[in-house]
């Protein structure tokens, strides 16, 4: 009996002392600011507000724009890892919201769309957070338009990352040949799978709860 008690205490102490696996979430959202897509940014604000309401202490959130060369820290609009104290978390969320509001108000269209660079930047950030659940949300039409000379045709490391494409609005040309839209989506899905990630497409922002689960 004594042995059992000692063993239980030992197991409990080992369990209690060892660093438990992280249960946190990290979300990196990419906002397409090319061309007329800036008009869609109000929808992006709704998604960001939803994320702010959903994420909790210990979770990380970063918002970055997709522009001509997105593999850069300068495209980061705001990033935060929420504090352990709920009162501080609320303040951080308010500050984050203010930054996003200012960005959306003053945003200027970019000439090119480097989605791959943005995803690569997001992947780097997410792996650094050490969170258990990692999400990249791409708020874009998925039409990549690179500056001449930029190389982006390689596999992106996306192991344990869930990539969610949001509001992939159909382009004018898609109406002429919808296969363009389907090919774009299929192409990105293949790239994500090749990188070891999971793919999800969500055009209806009424079902935001499907983005982050668990």
């Amino acid at each position, binding site marked *: 009996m004594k042995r059992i008690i000692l063993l239980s205490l030992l197991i*409990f102490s080992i*369990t*209690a002392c060892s660093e*438990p696996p992280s*249960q*946190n979430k990290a979300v990196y959202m990419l906002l397409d600011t090319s061309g007329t897509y800036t008009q869609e940014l109000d929808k992006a604000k709704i998604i960001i*507000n*939803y994320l*702010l*309401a959903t994420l*909790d*202490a*210990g979770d990380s959130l970063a918002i970055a724009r997709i522009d001509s060369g997105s593999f850069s820290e300068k495209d980061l609009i705001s990033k935060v890892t929420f504090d*352990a*104290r*709920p*009162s501080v978390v*609320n303040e951080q*969320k*308010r500050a984050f*919201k203010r930054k996003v509001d200012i960005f959306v108000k003053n945003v200027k269209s970019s000439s090119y769309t480097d989605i791959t660079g943005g995803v690569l930047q997001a992947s780097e950030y997410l792996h650094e957070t050490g969170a258990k659940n990692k999400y990249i949300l791409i708020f874009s039409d998925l039409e990549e338009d690179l500056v001449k000379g930029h190389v982006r045709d390689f596999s992106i490391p996306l192991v344990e990352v869930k990539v969610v494409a949001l509001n992939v609005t159909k382009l004018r040309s898609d109406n002429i040949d919808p296969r363009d839209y389907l090919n774009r989506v299929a192409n990105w899905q293949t790239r994500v799978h090749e990188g070891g990630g999971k793919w999800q497409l969500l055009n209806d922002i009424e079902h935001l709860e499907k983005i982050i689960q668990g």
Partner: protein
Amino acid sequence: MNQNLLLLWNDSMPVSLTIWLLLTVTSMYLARDLVHQLVFATTQALRVSLKHFYRSLNILATNIRKRNNEVLLSSAREATEKNIEREFHRVNAMVAKDLSGYPATQRKVNDAIKKIEEDFQQSTETPPLPPAWLDAIESIAVLSNNNGDASVAKVLSHIQKTLESAYKETLNEFRKTSLSRHTILKNMLPNWRTISQSLHSIDKNIDGLDKRSQIIDQQMEKYEQIRNHDEIICRTLSSSSMTQFAISTLILIIATLGGIINFQLIALPMSEMVGGTSQLGPMKTSDVAALVIIMLEIAMGIFLMESLRITHLFPIIGSMDDKMRRRMLIITLSILTILASVEASLAYMRDLLALDRETLSQSLAGAAVVEAELRWIPSIGQMILGFILPFTLAFIAIPLESFIQGLRTIMGIIMYHSIQILAFSIRVLANLFFRVGKIINTLYDVVIFIPLQIEKLFNHRKTKSIDPDIETIHS
């Protein structure tokens, strides 16, 4: 392979099978006695082992029952002893409090009686009225009217007046003494009342003592039954224990729900104190901290109840001297009050955090932030709840004690009945093995019935051939 084995004797399957059958039956017939013995020995061995097991289980069940009864009787004996002791204490207190004043009361009654006697004596010493005076006055009055002599009449009239005056004076004196007597009698009234009240008080005390003695008699009777290990009292105690167990379980469920509410009140603000991200095993550290506070409150409540000698979970606390016990009572009550105050403040903090979160949610949803009216009512309610719940949880010690005591009895009863069911099953199994052995032997004989019948016939003839010889010998 099997086919080859079947066709070992002949290429024709029926022929080969017949040979196999003949061989098998013959072998079985030859091995009949051995097989019967083997089956019998095996089933008997199993039966005997199972019977031994059954007997052991029965002994175990009896021991458990005896042990259960002992536990029940022991706790009941302890409780009855305490009851009797308490009743004696009450009687002692009654005697010390009420009957200690008995000599004073007796003196008071005696004084009152003496005073009444004296008053009575005084009231009887009144001089009787001389009734002859009245006759003399009447005679003189008649004489004065009949005689006609003026001087005589005058003298007589004077005498009459004097007598009347004397009579009046006597009458007045009599009235005065009567009044004095009545006053004395009136003064006796309080003494009578005093005697009546004193006697009533004594009667009441005696009546109280009588009732207490009846209760002691009942308890003594119960105690006697317990000491005699009466079967009826065992059943009564067992039933009472089960009722206690059910009630205490219900109360504990209610207390657990109260604990959950308490946890909800302090879990969120706890994350403000210890952080909401770190984890201890599968749980958040803040949740563990909140649980620890609740557990501490329950522990303090248990110690408080122990110090008050309401529960007896820790005999060491109960056996402490009064001074030490009082100290412990003060310490536990102080800690409980501090914890309750902490909870009240945490509950208030929770309200503030909830309000902040609500405001943020409204802002994120794009709605205008609305200032709720009468927001202070739930805030105060939560604070009061945070302060009251720890004290409420302190009382968990009482049902917990009943639960532990009842659980011991219930576990004993369950164990006893389980073992009895097992013993019954074992007995059935033992009998089944015995029957199965017989069935196997009969089935064996059915397979080799032909050689058996031949043997029977042969034996019959043999007996017949021997019988005439025997008859000859006898004759």
